[in-house]
């Protein structure tokens, strides 16, 4: 078929309808006239000839109609008719229209919002090329599968393996950054120069690292992340080539990384070259473990082969240096993409499924309402059939109607989503990986369209199916309004409502479990008292704070200033704050009288360097012995304080006070320290896992090998008196005090400890909030559906109820009759919902804390809640039945 001719024909139908009609009229008239002319020539008079010609031609109207049907675009035209008709119908029932559009807007909006987050975090391509070949490597120890490598160890793996197209090392590096603006503490990494070619990352502007950057005596360079570039340099393209001061050292900015760049468990504001060969630790076998590794597998090598090869390298090292490598019992190898998103996958998918379930409940609800409307409209539809509409045409009409609703709801949902993008992002916990590059892209639009289509069929299919089954002639003949197909219809509605109740229960059960987990967790004692405690993280420039003495000097200047502030009661320093994300520091130790049976069984403990007032500021209780004092300095014997967990695990036989242990916290030999105190346990890394052993050392006795780490990461905590000055005043006083000691010190934001604690719960709060509101919406919709089906049933039976009342049935009996129906429905729905929820329980097991994912208490409570709300809906519906006047009911016909 020629497209040009077809489109001309289509446009004739839609845009030149009047002209076409006119021309048809002229053409057919011409035919009749020409025929009449011919008849006239054969001897008839003009009038007779014209009459005869007209009779022989037949009905002009019929042929005109047939001609019009031959024009193209017939399908589109009837569709438009259906749309016009549906819009007219919907306008006539504004309440239904409004409810339907809002329900769908909420359902589709929630699903699309959840999808857009899932899309950003899980689906959007990672910045790496061929990311399935990229592996992230940890050293495995008996007590921790994910620990770091030392520099010589990295170099051995790098040089000896044949499985990887390059093996890179990465270390966290949190320096202060200063230029013309205020100094700022940034989170960064040191990376071997081959890292970027391994990851397959191209710079946004400038360049990434090249092999020369790792060479001895290379010019000092730095790369900026997209985030830092946007935040501090307002995306100015001419930063490349500028010099900045990183930890007191001048470095040239050579490039900006793309926004998609993200690394597992590491924040990256800046990247600097690692320069492994010129590092003093290059050949120090016993030096600190501070590196993680990643590599790109060669094309034909499997993960298992690579693992085996690396493990044999590890065993060789173990044989060569038994003392150094005994604790390292293997390697943990994870695909890099898994490592980035693995913790959030199950949470996000749960939220996504919950949103989808709400949409489903909403659609089912509308399908129920459409069913009753279809029932009520059966006469109208029957009349249309009698006038020549085919059944397909009617089914299409109903689908068009639900498509209109779905499209309006879907667009509204999408608009709300786009307007509410900011609100959505505020809700999302900031530690969600990759969320900072959140964008509503074409995939979200595609998904929204798909959901709209799905909603169309979910809402429209049930009534259409009903229509295709029922005998419409019956509806026309029968005097009883809307009875044809009534049995099937009400059965279908009951099934739909039972389904809604089941779905709502599944959501409620999940919300209940999350709620209980959340409160179990938030009532856990973190081991410190977070109220009225302010914290601030800072870092000290390398040049001015070269050794321990300089850091101690800084402390000695800061301490009296803080003590002089009226709002501050106690203030202390600590190397790593409890619950501070992504920071770990631990040390191995031994009891000389109980050497470990095997070297790999050497126990380890969290390792913190503090000043004497830290415990008082944090409210960590002393359980035995003493706190540190300012006299515990470099001239006195080294002392430590341990937590009660360490005391219980390793000194079950005696008091640890006065005991000597050997700690391995330096590049040379383990050194002896004396335990002088025992403090309460503290949850250092998260609230979920029980407190591990802790060990604290006084700042004045910190080992020189720990100074670089201390310089990069140190926190000041201050217990404040809220009655003096208020929080804002104390915050500014704290900042001013630190600035006054040294204006070059990079100070991060001051955060109350309660906020740090809340952040540890943020992602749970987020999913609880979302699942909770979805469950609430589903509960409301299911109750509304139940209400509708009960009141519809009552409406259908007004006459019957009237007769019963007239014959002397008590109101209680009628009440019971209706209630029984509702209760049956409810029971079926709840039973089905419980079965589904129990089947799905294992999917949310990882999100539980302190309770089983099949916690009977939660299941019972939500079932009761659902039953109560549903029975209230039933009761409201049945009150209408009880108010029926028997006389009115009997007349009702």
């Amino acid at each position, binding site marked *: *078929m*020629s497209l*040009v*001719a*077809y489109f001309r*024909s289509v446009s004739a139908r839609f845009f030149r309808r009047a002209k076409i009609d006119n*021309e*048809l009229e*002229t*053409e*057919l008239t*011409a*035919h009749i*006239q*020409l*025929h009449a*002319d011919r008849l006239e020539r054969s001897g008839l008079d003009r009038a007779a000839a014209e009459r005869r010609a007209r009779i*022989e*031609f*037949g*009905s*002009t109207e*019929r*042929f005109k109609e*047939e*001609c019009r*049907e*031959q*024009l*193209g675009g017939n399908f589109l035209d009837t569709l438009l008719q259906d749309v016009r008709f549906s819009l007219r119908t919907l306008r006539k029932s504004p309440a239904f229209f409004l409810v339907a559009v809002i329900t769908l807007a909420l359902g589709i909006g929630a699903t699309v919002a959840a999808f857009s987050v899932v899309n950003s975090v899980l689906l959007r391509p990672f910045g790496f090329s061929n990311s399935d070949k990229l592996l992230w490597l940890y050293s495995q120890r008996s007590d921790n599968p994910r620990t770091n490598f030392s520099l010589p160890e990295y170099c051995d793996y790098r040089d000896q393996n044949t499985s990887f197209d390059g093996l890179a090392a990465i270390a966290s590096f949190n320096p202060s950054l200063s230029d013309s603006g205020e100094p700022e503490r940034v989170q960064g990494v040191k990376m071997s120069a081959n890292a970027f070619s391994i990851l397959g990352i191209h710079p946004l502007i400038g360049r990434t690292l090249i092999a020369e950057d790792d060479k001895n005596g290379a010019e000092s360079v730095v790369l900026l992340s997209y985030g830092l570039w946007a935040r501090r340099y307002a995306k100015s393209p001419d930063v490349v080539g500028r010099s900045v001061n990183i930890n007191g050292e001048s470095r040239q900015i050579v490039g900006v990384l793309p926004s998609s760049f993200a690394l597992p468990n590491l924040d990256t504001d800046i990247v600097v070259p690692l320069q492994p060969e010129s590092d003093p630790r290059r050949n120090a076998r016993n030096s600190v473990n501070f590196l993680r590794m990643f590599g790109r597998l060669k094309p034909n090598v499997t993960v298992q082969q690579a693992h085996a090869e690396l493990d044999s390298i590890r065993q060789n090292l173990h044989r060569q240096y038994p003392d150094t490598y005994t604790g390292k019992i293997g390697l943990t190898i994870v695909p890099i993409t898994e490592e980035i998103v693995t913790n959030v996958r199950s949470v996000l998918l749960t939220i996504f499924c919950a949103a989808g379930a709400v949409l489903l409940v909403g659609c089912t609800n509308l399908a129920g309402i459409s069913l009753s409307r279809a029932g009520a409209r059966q006469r109208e539809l029957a009349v249309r059939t009698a006038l020549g509409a085919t059944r397909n045409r009617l089914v299409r009409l109903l689908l068009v109607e639900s498509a209109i609703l779905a499209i309006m709801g879907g667009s509204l949902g999408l608009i709300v989503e786009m307007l509410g993008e900011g609100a959505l992002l505020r809700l999302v916990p900031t530690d969600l990986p990759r969320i900072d590059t959140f964008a509503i892209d074409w995939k979200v639009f595609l998904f929204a369209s798909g959901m709209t289509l799905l909603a169309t069929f979910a809402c429209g299919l049930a009534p259409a199916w009903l229509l295709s089954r029922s005998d419409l002639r019956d509806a026309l003949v029968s005097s009883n309004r809307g009875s044809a197909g009534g049995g099937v219809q009400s059965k279908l509605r009951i099934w739909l409502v039972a389904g809604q109740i089941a779905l709502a229960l599944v959501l409620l059960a999940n919300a209940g479990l999350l709620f209980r987990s959340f409160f179990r967790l938030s009532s856990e004692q973190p081991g410190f008292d977070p109220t009225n405690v302010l914290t601030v993280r800072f870092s000290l420039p390398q040049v001015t704070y070269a050794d321990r003495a300089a850091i101690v000097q800084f402390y000695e200047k800061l301490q009296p200033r803080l003590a002089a502030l009226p709002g501050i009661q106690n203030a202390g320093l600590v190397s790593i704050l409890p619950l501070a994300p992504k920071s770990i520091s631990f040390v191995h130790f031994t009891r000389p009288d109980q050497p470990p049976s095997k070297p790999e069984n050497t126990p380890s403990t969290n390792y913190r360097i503090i000043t004497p007032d830290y415990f008082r500021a944090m409210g960590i209780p002393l359980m035995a012995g003493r706190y540190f004092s300012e006299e515990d300095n470099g001239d006195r014997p080294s002392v430590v304080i341990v937590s009660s967990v360490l005391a219980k695990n390793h000194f079950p036989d005696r008091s640890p006070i006065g005991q000597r242990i050997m700690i391995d916290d330096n590049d040379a030999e383990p050194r002896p320290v004396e335990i002088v105190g025992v403090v309460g346990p503290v949850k250092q890394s998260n609230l979920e896992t029980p407190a591990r052993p802790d060990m604290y050392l006084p700042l004045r006795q910190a080992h020189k090998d720990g100074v670089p780490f201390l310089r990069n990461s140190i926190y000041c905590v201050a217990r404040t008196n809220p009655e003096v000055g208020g929080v804002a005043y104390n915050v500014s006083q704290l900042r001013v005090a630190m600035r006054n000691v040294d204006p070059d010190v990079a100070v991060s934001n001051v955060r109350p400890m309660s906020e740090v604690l809340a952040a540890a719960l943020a992602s749970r709060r987020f999913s609880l909030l979302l699942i909770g509101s979805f469950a609430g919406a589903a509960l409301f919709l299911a109750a509304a559906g139940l209400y509708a089906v009960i009141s519809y049933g009552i409406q259908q039976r007004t006459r019957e109820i009237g007769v019963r009342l007239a014959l002397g049935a008590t109101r209680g009996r009628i009440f019971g009759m209706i209630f029984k129906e509702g209760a049956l429905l409810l029971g079926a729905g709840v039973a089905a919902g419980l079965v589904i929820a129990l089947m799905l329980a294992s999917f949310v097991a990882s999100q539980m804390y302190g309770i089983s994912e099949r916690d009977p208490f939660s299941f019972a409570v939500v079932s009761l809640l659902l039953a109560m709300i549903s029975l209230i809906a039933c009761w409201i519906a049945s009150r209408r039945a009880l108010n029926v006047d028997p006389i009115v009911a009997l007349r009702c016909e």
Partner: protein
Amino acid sequence: MSDEAELLPGTLDMLILKAVSLGPLHGYGVLLRIQQISGDALFIEQGALYPALFRLVRQGLLKTEWDRSENNRRAKYYELTAKGRKRLQEETDWWNRSSKAVAAALAARPQEI
């Protein structure tokens, strides 16, 4: 009228194309031409011609133009397009093949089997 044959279904389009292939015609002219070339042996319902003409125009087989008829009436003239000419050729071939086959089948005598 009794000697006029009912039109076989599907052949009207082919006959219209044939009629028009001999020169541009208005609708009534098409009717007359078909009657003329078939020796008045085929009966065509006059009005039924027009939906068929519209269909052929939509398919791009015919094009139209308004003009004056021989007795000075405004009429729509139909003309064959290149595509229409091709289609006519195809349909003629098909018709010849199948009618020959049917004729042969009907001419079969018992002794030939």
